[in-house]
């Protein structure tokens, strides 16, 4: 590995050249990462710079994009540009929290399943049960269960995503534990924690990260879908899903109110997916060939 990298990048002393090589070798990761970095910057810094996204001015309702309102205004006369920038924050929070939570829970449950074979059957039946219920229906039902809020939406998307991760982790654990070197380690009396830390966890990490990027992308789309159906985050919160959902009534008279935030959503999901694809090719060639 060291050898081949050195061979391909003989001038590795210059960080610029090294970066250039990295980009050439992994253009998708690079493109995805750059796009995401930009969006993340917008999400973090943007809200400080733009106008108040809650400020209503009914006199200015449904104005097309102009110098004053870059992305136009919505039915309350709120500035869509500023709402879209705030929306980046909400959507990324949803995507990242769902991916993180689902991965962590999925990892723990998956490890338990792969490791303690006795309760594996029960847990997997429960997972099958949750998986058998369509994601969006489960989420709608969960959201109507409690008061809608960002937290509830996140939880409602996490629950149906967990079983998918559990399956991935569990299958990795099972295949790793049947490897001769792991079996011999077990026979040799290696402690569970050590076994976990040294052999199993590192191997699950790559597929887990790849899976997490897909979960992240689908979470953002599901959030938009839930808002569309009127069961998402509270309508006053400027999430992209909400902006699009509220703008849909005006699609023919104010297309900007739906197309611009929609495009932001699409580009973000695209960036996450590209990053995921690139990582998968890089980290997990075996999986890459299957997908």
């Amino acid at each position, binding site marked *: 590995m060291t050898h081949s990298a050195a061979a391909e990048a003989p001038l590795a002393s210059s960080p610029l050249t090294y970066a250039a090589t990295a980009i050439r070798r992994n253009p998708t990761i690079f493109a995805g990462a750059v796009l995401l970095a930009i969006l993340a910057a917008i999400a973090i810094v943007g809200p400080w710079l733009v106008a108040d996204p809650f400020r209503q001015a009914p006199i200015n309702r449904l104005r097309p994009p102009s110098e004053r309102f870059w992305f136009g205004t919505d039915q309350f006369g709120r500035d869509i540009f500023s709402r879209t920038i705030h929306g980046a924050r909400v959507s990324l929070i949803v995507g990242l929290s769902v991916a993180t939570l689902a991965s962590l829970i999925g990892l723990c449950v998956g490890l338990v399943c792969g490791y303690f074979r006795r309760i594996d059957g029960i847990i997997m039946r429960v997972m099958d049960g949750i998986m*058998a219920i369509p994601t969006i229906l489960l989420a709608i039902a969960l959201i109507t269960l409690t008061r809608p809020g960002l937290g509830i939406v996140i939880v409602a998307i996490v629950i149906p995503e967990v079983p998918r991760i559990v399956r991935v982790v569990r299958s990795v654990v099972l295949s790793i534990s049947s490897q001769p070197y792991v079996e011999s380690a077990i026979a040799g009396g290696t402690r569970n924690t050590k076994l976990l830390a040294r052999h199993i966890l590192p191997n699950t990490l790559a597929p887990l990260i790849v899976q997490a990027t897909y979960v992240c*992308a689908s979470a953002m789309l599901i959030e938009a879908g839930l808002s569309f159906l009127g069961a998402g985050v509270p309508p006053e919160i400027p999430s992209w899903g909400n902006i699009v959902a509220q703008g849909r009534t005006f*699609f023919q008279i104010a297309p900007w109110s739906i197309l611009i935030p929609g495009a932001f959503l699409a580009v973000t999901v695209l960036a996450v997916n590209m990053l995921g694809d690139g990582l998968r090719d890089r980290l997990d060639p075996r999986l890459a060939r299957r997908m």
Partner: protein
Amino acid sequence: MTAYILRRLLATIPVMVVVAIFVFFLLRLAPGDPAAIIAGEDATAAQISAVRTQLGLDRPIFEQFIVWLGGMLQGDFGTSIFSNLPVSRLIVQRIEPTLSLMLATLAVALCLAIPLGVLAAWKARGFVDRLVMLFAVLGFAIPVFLVGYVLIYIFAVKLGWLPVQGYTPIREGLWPWMESLILPSVALGITYMALIARVTRASMLEVLAEDYIRTATSKGLTTNRVLLLHALKNASVPIVTVIGIGVALLISGVVITETVFNIPGLGRLTVDAVLKRDYPIVQGLIIVFAAAKVLVNLLIDISYVFLDPRIRY
């Protein structure tokens, strides 16, 4: 084989039980009260509580569960709180539109995605491949309802070629039926196409690298024959698997597509019932969806036997 199917069917029982328990308690813990909704806009508290008693919603939740489960076992899904009609009837009259939409989507997706995937694999790393892959990545990124609105605007409102909304049952003529399905199935199919095209391409690439394909090519078989007879057949197992995963995806997509195109299918029924807290319908539907999904998985496992002679049960 029969023994395998039986075993698989038995294994679905615990899954269905989990689903049943989960769904029932989830809904009953929800804060909404169907009695208040059904009693109407100006109903007084006394009227609402009378409705609640009449619907049996004031009884202990556990008792309600037993009653419902008992009914289910006898094939009785209960009665809709709002329309007073049997849930089974409401579900049955909605199956045709949803099934049609799913089949049409499947047809659109397969007829376009598999050739695209094969093409991309054949011309791997070329311009066509890049284009197909770009489409595949984009297909995942655009929300279904956005695609739906744009399609309606172009093909129905501006050009007037196709109906905007609704569903025409197949018994009223094949063309009206198909006409009502074209836009929704394309809108819904885009995500699905993207998924299948990717998997087709990937598994084709894997198979094309195998020795026997090289042998076949060197024997002088035509490219078409190699691609389709040998490569595609051997690549079909992962493709079929992903079709199965896609059915799950479709069920979720159907909910939104049916809303945009106003198709009176199961997805719409579910959303309406959840928002109106018509518990018996939601319970019945989720059981039906779950059962359908379990069934599809079973069918797919069985199809492996036919596609890949190495697999035996």
